[in-house]
């Protein structure tokens, strides 16, 4: 058992080391990720220092438990949204070896523990020792409870990844949406319930924190505080919930893993022959071909379906917050932010083609045609939804006069983002899961490259968009209809110009370096 696990572990880190040796970008990304983690750990200790000054145990417990619950939530939700729990040990790749699920499970668990996010979480959780250093017993208990925090986070994140992967395999796009909503519901329901029971939260904040300490997300974080406080009954309850959570998540993970070791490859959905779908509707020529292909993939490729969920998910989240916090501006920015995120997800869109991109190189397709085709597909999907949200969200908070400004901002963000992505995806190729793999399992190093890349692209989009953002902000702040309509017109013109520029520039780049891009895709695929 131990030997197998060790081999798997070594395999995982060998893959990582080879990746790093090959690519300086990846090395930079890992360093960047580690720095980011260090900053977070430093924040945790600074917070602990501040907490140490607080007299009442409760004053320490409240921020600690709430933040902790958010960290755990992040571990579970993040791989579902950005797609990647950094697993080179794809169970389906290992299916042909006589391995028991338990061993893969153990190896994957150790990988999760022994990598940057795991180490950072452990260090941050250990800050509890410092925060309660004037209560020796609590400080002592904080050490094993930090270990439990790490176990909960890693097991939770892997369980979510594995379960979601299986759902998508079986149900395609629907499975993906289902997975996100189930995860969100299961994880957020207890907190929502606690909030509902203790509404408004400021009336009885202590009871609310106690309630969060009983949820799967918060329980494990509450242990040192309850020890310091001497509240044995609460301590036992939280401990019970914490251990139960680990047990249930572990079991779910094991079941999902066993399932994916059994079923290999996606189940085929057969269409009638002669049903060409969108290929019948698009104009002839390369632009139409690429647009139609992209549209089919948006619906049928789980890796891309994953990204589409952003469009409804972000506005819903923002609107909920807007209602809960009575902050109307959250409703105004929902559509523009969702509009900017979708092109962002495609900042390295060609990576998802893999070497299938060679079909375009072989046919000597002009770069501009490729850019235009992809942009059209993205806009066909995004424009109706973004438009709808941009109209409905301001109406929902009772501000119809601000609809034009929100529309202008949203379309400007969508068009500009698409323009920027048209350039960046002609330059950048990142490792993504191959077609047919679990879309939530990311190749090693890809998380960090994705993050760094999306920072750069977000920065570029924000810079280009700045004039419209300023104009839109004035329009929203004043509620002036003239400024609002002005934002709409200016946003469409500005965004249209940015998109045109992006397509022309990206097309020119692609004309020059399409073969090199293909060579890089080929190298990525060979690992």
């Amino acid at each position, binding site marked *: 058992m131990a030997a197998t696990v060790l081999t798997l572990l070594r395999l995982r880190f060998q893959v990582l080391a080879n990746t790093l040796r090959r690519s300086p970008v990846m090395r930079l990304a890992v360093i960047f990720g580690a720095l980011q983690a260090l900053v977070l750990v430093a924040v945790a200790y600074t917070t602990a220092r501040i907490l140490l000054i607080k007299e009442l145990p409760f004053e320490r417990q409240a921020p600690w438990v709430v933040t902790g619950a958010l960290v755990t939530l992040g571990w579970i939700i993040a791989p579902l949204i950005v797609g990647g729990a950094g697993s080179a040990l794809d169970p389906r790749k290992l299916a042909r070896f006589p391995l028991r699920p338990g061993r893969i499970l153990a190896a994957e668990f150790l990988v999760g523990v022994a990598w940057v996010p795991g180490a950072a979480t452990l260090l941050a959780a250990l800050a509890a020792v410092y925060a309660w250093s004037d209560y020796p017993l609590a400080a002592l208990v904080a050490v094993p409870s930090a270990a439990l925090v790490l176990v909960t986070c890693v097991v939770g994140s892997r369980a979510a990844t594995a379960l979601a992967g299986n759902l998508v395999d079986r149900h395609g796009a629907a499975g993906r949406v289902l997975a996100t909503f189930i995860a969100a519901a299961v994880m957020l329901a207890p907190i929502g319930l606690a909030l509902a029971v203790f509404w408004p939260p400021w009336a009885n904040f202590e009871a609310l924190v106690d309630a969060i300490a009983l949820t799967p997300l918060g329980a494990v974080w509450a242990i040192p505080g309850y020890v310091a406080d001497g509240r044995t009954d609460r301590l036992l309850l939280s401990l019970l919930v914490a251990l139960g959570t680990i047990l249930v998540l572990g079991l779910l993970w094991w079941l999902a893993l066993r399932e994916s070791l059994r079923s290999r490859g*996606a189940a085929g959905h057969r269409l009638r022959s002669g049903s060409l779908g969108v290929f019948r509707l698009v104009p002839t020529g390369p632009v139409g071909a690429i647009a139609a292909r992209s549209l089919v993939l948006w619906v049928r490729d789980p890796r891309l379906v994953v990204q589409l969920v952003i469009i409804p998910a972000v506005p819903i989240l923002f609107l909920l917050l807007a209602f809960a916090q009575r902050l109307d501006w959250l409703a105004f920015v929902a559509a523009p932010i969702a509009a900017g995120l979708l092109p962002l997800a495609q900042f390295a869109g060609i990576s998802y083609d893999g070497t*299938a991109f060679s079909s375009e190189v*072989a*046919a000597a397709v002009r770069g501009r045609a490729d850019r235009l085709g992809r942009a059209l597909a993205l806009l066909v999907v995004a424009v109706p939804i973004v438009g709808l949200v941009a109209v409905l969200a301001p109406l929902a908070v009772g501000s119809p006069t601000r609809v034009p400004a929100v529309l202008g901002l949203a379309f400007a963000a969508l068009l500009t983002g698409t323009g920027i992505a048209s350039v960046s995806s002609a330059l950048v190729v990142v490792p993504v899961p191959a077609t047919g793999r679990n879309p939530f399992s990311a190749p090693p190093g890809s998380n960090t490259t994705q993050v760094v890349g999306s920072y750069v692209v977000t920065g570029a989009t924000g810079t280009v968009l700045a004039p419209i953002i300023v104009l839109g902000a004035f329009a929203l702040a004043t509620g002036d209809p003239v400024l609002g309509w002005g934002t709409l017109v200016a946003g469409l013109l500005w965004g249209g110009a940015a998109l045109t520029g992006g397509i022309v520039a990206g097309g020119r780049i692609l004309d020059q370096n399409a073969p090199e891009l293909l060579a890089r895709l*080929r190298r990525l695929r060979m690992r």
Partner: protein
Amino acid sequence: MAEPADRLVGAAAAIELAGIVKRYGDRLAVAGIDLAIPAGTFTGLLGPNGAGKTTTLSIATGLLRPDAGRVLLHGVDVWADPTRAKRMVGVLADGVDLFDRLTGEQLLHYTGLLYELPRETVAQRAAELIDMLDLGAAAGAAVADYSAGMTKKIALACALIHSPRVLVLDEPFESVDPVSAANIRDILHGFVALGGTVVVSSHSMDLVERMCDHVAIVAAGRVLAAGPIDEVRAGVSLEDRFLELVGGRRHSEGPEWLRPS
């Protein structure tokens, strides 16, 4: 003996590679290849694993930029005028993904439209190719669900749909069943009989000896011999000639421990 004019190549060459060099890092994959493939021939590119066959064919079809050298397709420089050159070639690349979430039929239409064929032409040719390659039952299923042989066949259909003058096929028969292989062979022979040029890479001697009229033997990134098959063979069997040229044959009975008892 070939005519002197044939040796001079030029217009008669379907593919002309001159001084091709390609490195991957510090590994020399193609070490200066000069090769002219005469139009109207059925040429086999033979070589051991890692000889540089796939790299050479990728360069010949403009999928990979060489570090040095020139590629002419029917006299058109692939890197100077890619659009005109590439319209003349159909490529079946080995180890390259397809957009496998499309159905077989959609994939064919996609490819046809990429080459700017009118929609009616695409529809008609797609139907004929599907029929010819016996893919009818699977035309409406996602290519991801195809077997290896069916995937090869749909990729071949994609290489044919724009009616190229030159076909470059990397390992076209790998994992294709005997019936389909025979059908594909017929198609290819017909294509050559009508004046087209076919280049297939393979490491199967038999296949090349049976199908091709010309052969080029490549190893370690160089052309060791090229020309009409009988000339290269020089009286012995192709396999003997190949082993003689490439070398590296071991005369042993395998490792000590490999003794099923």
